[in-house]
């Protein structure tokens, strides 16, 4: 298997070697031996268009594509390169011993009955069929694994339900939902990602849902952009919680109350660039925090990724990117860093755990759903 098709499909053959991608790439900043164009150059020059191991270092955060004059889709090129590497037997050394990839492949492999809804708070109003579905993603699994980081990703699920209930919605929760397959897809295992995609599309259709809301931008990119490619159909509209909230605010059905505290927002790469949505979360946070909402130096589409994606790898470069991100947040004058992706939260908390600078380790990291839920309830805590 070679990369010739990928070079054409992603416009990588049009690379002008101008180096803008290297200039903006967060990995190149700390790893002089990596650059997006170098990866392309290698693929073009090698006689059979082979991939090489640098493919695994890319964050697929799409920052380079923003500045590329030839419109090269490096992220997609990287993903296809990983497919080639996998086909050649060079399985990437995924972080955490690939525990999440194994988990996803176990799900892809058969239709076992999961026990994934034990976290749902008793007070939550949910249904088994209806127009609106909440796609929870892997939240409960992360809490089981990251016991040492004190993450509370399940809470994001509970808070999202609080928000949806407060909006007068009773969302559908699927007891047999599967992982969205994002990490398998981006680590070059499209075959298993497609199995998960088909299962999820079938189950979503069975609930009769027209709108699928998720608190995880990775799930949304899969549901909206990738599932139609993998399964040929996606008979629903997929929205991130912030986008759904924005549509409700436009129609005046939700009132966000003010909350105290200085906050800033970490744009998840999947939300701000892959889904092209930097405004919706800002609009809500701006209303909740007013002038206490601060922007980091790199924000919106310019924001820098949380340092690792798809559980592909985690190294010293990831740590430096994360520390830099925390520093920008502290420099903005914020005490709380709000993010809209459970993985940003996990990665930044992990960087905090080994951080010596009090300013950075004392930053409070919270999810967008939690903040919005508190605002709607008037700061009345959680369920």
């Amino acid at each position, binding site marked *: 298997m070679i990369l010739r098709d990928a070079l054409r499909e992603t416009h990588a053959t049009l690379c002008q070697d101008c180096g803008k991608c290297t200039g903006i790439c967060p990995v190149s900043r700390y790893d002089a031996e990596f650059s997006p164009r170098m990866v392309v150059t290698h693929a073009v020059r090698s006689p059979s268009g082979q991939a090489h191991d640098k493919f695994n270092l890319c964050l697929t955060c799409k920052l380079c594509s923003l500045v590329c004059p030839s419109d090269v889709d490096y992220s997609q090129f990287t993903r296809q390169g990983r497919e080639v590497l996998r086909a050649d037997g060079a399985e990437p050394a995924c972080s*955490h*011993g*690939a*525990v999440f990839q*194994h*988990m996803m*492949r*176990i*799900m892809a*492999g*058969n*239709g*076992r*009955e*999961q*026990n*994934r809804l*034990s976290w749902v708070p008793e007070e939550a109003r949910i249904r088994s069929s209806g127009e609106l579905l909440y796609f929870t993603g892997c939240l*409960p*699994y992360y809490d*089981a*694994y990251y*016991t040492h980081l004190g993450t509370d990703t399940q809470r994001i699920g509970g808070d999202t339900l609080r928000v949806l209930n407060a909006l007068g919605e009773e969302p559908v929760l699927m007891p*047999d939902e599967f992982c969205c397959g994002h990490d398998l897809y981006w680590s070059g295992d499209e075959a298993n990602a497609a199995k998960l995609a088909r*299962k999820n599309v*079938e*189950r979503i*259709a*069975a609930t*009769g849902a027209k709108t699928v809301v998720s608190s995880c931008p990775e799930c949304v990119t899969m549901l909206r952009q990738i599932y139609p490619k993998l399964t040929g159909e996606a008979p629903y509209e997929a929205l991130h919680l912030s986008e759904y909230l924005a549509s409700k605010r436009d129609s005046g059905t939700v009132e966000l109350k003010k909350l105290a505290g200085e906050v800033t927002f970490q744009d998840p790469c999947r939300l701000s660039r892959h889904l092209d949505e930097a405004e919706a979360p800002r609009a809500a946070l701006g209303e909740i925090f007013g002038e206490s909402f601060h922007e980091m130096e790199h924000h919106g589409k310019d924001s820098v990724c949380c340092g690792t994606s798809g559980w592909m790898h985690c190294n010293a470069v990831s740590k430096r990117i994360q520390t830099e991100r925390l520093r920008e947040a502290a420099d903005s004058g914020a005490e709380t860093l709000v993010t809209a992706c459970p993985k940003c939260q996990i990665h930044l908390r992990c960087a905090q755990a080994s951080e010596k600078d009090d300013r950075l380790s004392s930053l409070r990291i919270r999810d967008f759903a939690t903040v919005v839920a508190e605002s709607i309830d008037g700061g009345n805590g959680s369920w």
Partner: protein
Amino acid sequence: MKAVKGNWKPRLIVFSCKWCFPLGLEEERHLPEGCSVLRSLCTGRIHPSFVLQAIESGADGVFIAACEDGDCHYGTGTEMLETMIGRVDPMLDMLGVESSRFRVRYFPPGKADLILESVQEFRDQLEATGPRGPLLPAPRLSEVKK
């Protein structure tokens, strides 16, 4: 591992500590059929991903032969194993893998015969439980009422 059809026998992955239980060729010969032994320098090295990978590869059960607290060659291995179990148990539960398919037992050093006995018992129990298989047939789009 490939799926066995028809005459099904359980397949087991047995992790053991190389220091306390040097399960050698002699002992391995007495292990029940379908058991593969993976010797680890310390059971504290066993990562949740090892257990999940064994399940993903088709193992019907995973057995860990660990040292009793205080016997670890490195001092903290048993403690690390406990932490690992605390992480992998809820993941297996959510994935729908029965808890009876993952067993950790603690043995005093050198007691390979006790391990063999315990593994045999685990295997017999798995044989009675039956193979892991798809439990929930996925609803098809065609079955969905429009």
